[in-house]
């Protein structure tokens, strides 16, 4: 009996999150059908979904694993540019755009995950805040590498160079896919709001089920007390790696989704500011709180667009909203009030002991 009650409590929060995402999807559909969806908001739908996924991914590292990553935009860009190359080079082989998008997302996730392994293995063996420094460097390095990366494609296959477009030696029918600092140009837009929503649901399933399993428990135990976790027989590096690499791979998937929403995408889009922006979503939404990440990322991505009308007061309103979000998500009293029904019984129970 008690067992099912317990499982239900976890599941309740998970299903709340699925509900929010699905509700958002249908509200947008209804608004679109009634003809009230502005073009600017329509253009923001995929970025919103991408940033929500980014925030969820980063929350897995920051909130669940208790490590700090300052370079998550780096993983996003790995996913973005590998996704673009995959989608462009498969244009002939796979005519279905949905399938091509899926391939792009999977390859983007895979490569970003590999980047996560390469960074994670040496760094996560150390105890201390080294991950923040190394991911910060990674974000900058990846941006600079992509700034001088040239990729082209012709009948003979994919050509790559770190010099310029001329040294790609493309045949006459060749096409430049990635053009250094200009980034990817002439990209076929494959991302759709529906595909993004499906990806978001899949990401939620992965993260929430991972967190609510033996593996997630071990990750949180290491966060709370590394020495006690080791003494209880929980391998530390392995679990920190699981959280970090899963997060990196998801960020890669978000990157591919994001990039395939634009016809051009430049490496400088994924700079330090983007990493910090995502961190802001996570902190404002509440560290370790997935629902908060979803809402904070969505609101703060839409907000600048919605405020365009108010031109002069835009940043002022943005700042006020930031402060309100901060107070409501991180203030014990307000939070207890907001989810009164959900949390109160638990707190009272604790006090009675």
């Amino acid at each position: 009996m008690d067992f099912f009650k317990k499982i239900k409590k976890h599941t309740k929060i998970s299903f709340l999150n699925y509900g929010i995402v699905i509700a958002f999807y249908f509200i947008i559909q209804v608004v679109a059908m009634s003809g009230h969806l502005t073009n600017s908001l329509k253009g923001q739908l995929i970025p919103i979904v991408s940033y929500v996924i980014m925030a969820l991914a980063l929350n897995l590292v920051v909130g669940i694993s208790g490590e700090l990553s300052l370079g998550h935009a780096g993983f996003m860009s790995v996913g973005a540019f590998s996704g673009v190359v995959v989608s462009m080079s498969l244009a002939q082989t796979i005519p279905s755009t949905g399938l091509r998008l899926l391939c792009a997302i999977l390859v983007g996730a895979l490569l970003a995950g590999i980047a996560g392994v390469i960074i994670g293995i040496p760094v996560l063996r150390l105890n201390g805040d080294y991950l923040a420094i190394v991911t910060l460097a990674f974000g900058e390095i990846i941006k600079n590498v992509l700034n001088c990366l040239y990729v082209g494609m012709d009948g003979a296959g994919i050509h790559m160079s770190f010099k310029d477009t001329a040294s790609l030696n493309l045949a006459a029918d060749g096409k430049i896919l990635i053009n250094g600092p200009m980034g990817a140009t002439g990209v076929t837009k494959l991302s759709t709001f529906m595909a993004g929503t499906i990806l978001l649901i899949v990401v939620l399933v992965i993260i929430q089920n991972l967190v609510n399993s033996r593996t997630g428990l071990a990750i949180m135990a290491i966060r709370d007390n590394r020495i006690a976790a080791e003494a209880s027989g929980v391998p530390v590096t392995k679990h920190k790696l699981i959280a970090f690499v899963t997060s990196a791979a998801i960020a890669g998937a978000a990157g591919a989704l994001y990039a395939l929403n634009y016809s051009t995408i430049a490496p400088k889009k994924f700079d330090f500011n983007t990493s910090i922006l995502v961190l802001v979503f996570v902190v404002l939404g509440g560290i370790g709180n997935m629902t908060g990440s979803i809402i904070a990322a969505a609101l703060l991505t839409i907000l600048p667009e919605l405020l365009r009308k108010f031109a002069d007061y835009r940043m002022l309103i943005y700042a006020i909203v930031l402060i309100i979000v901060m107070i409501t998500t991180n203030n014990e009293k307000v939070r207890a009030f907001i989810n009164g029904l959900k949390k109160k019984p638990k707190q009272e129970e604790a006090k009675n002991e």
Partner: protein
Amino acid sequence: MSDKAQTPVLQTSHLGIDFGGLTAVDEFNISIAPTEIKGLIGPNGAGKTTIFNLLTKVYQPSRGTILLDGKDTRSMSPVQVNHAGIARTFQNIRLFDQLTVEENVKIGLHDHIKYGMFSGIFRLPSFWKEEKRAHEEALKLLDIFGMADEANVRADSLPYGAQRRLEIVRALATQPKLLLLDEPAAGMNPSETEELMNNIKKIRDEFKIAVMLIEHDMNLVMGICENIVVVNFGKIIAEGTPTQIQNDPQVIEAYLGGRKEED
């Protein structure tokens, strides 16, 4: 008596560690029988906690060997030592504060819950089966200390004594052969201490494991330990039954007597 004939669950020889110029532990030789309750006592700063840290590999020994069930633990990490059969509690309580009481125990069970990451993500049958088993096992262990009702309470909201008890349950969940308790009665009132004594004996009898405990409460030590090791300045100064220790002039001078004068 029959215990003496079996191989000891733990045997150390010439165990020692230096911190810079300070020799914190030196020539530490003990042997613990498979179901023995052994006391480790000594004045503050004698090196008792350091000995636990050596046995569990929180510190790498500077010299000497540790045999656990006859196996040398030289190359083992703290995690491997736990898997090999040593579990412990900490003098400064180390719980997983943000997890519930039950989840803390499940971390102890981590190595004994048999499903992988993918079964967890995709909620395969093994997830449900093993989670159910882990839940039942955790409640059974919590029940030793009558804590099953507090299973869903956050660990850091427990009162001090209950936190100490939860640490013991978590350690027990790893299914050790040797349980190390670092001042388990610290901060407990006399009736709590009395109950703890009975529970430590009960654990030993039920799980057939060895227990080594550090404790300043002499009633507890003399009440349940079959053998006592006294350390001072990192070295063993006496060893024997509670009666022998109580009458040992060196111990009285270094520790028991010294404490009386303080009082």
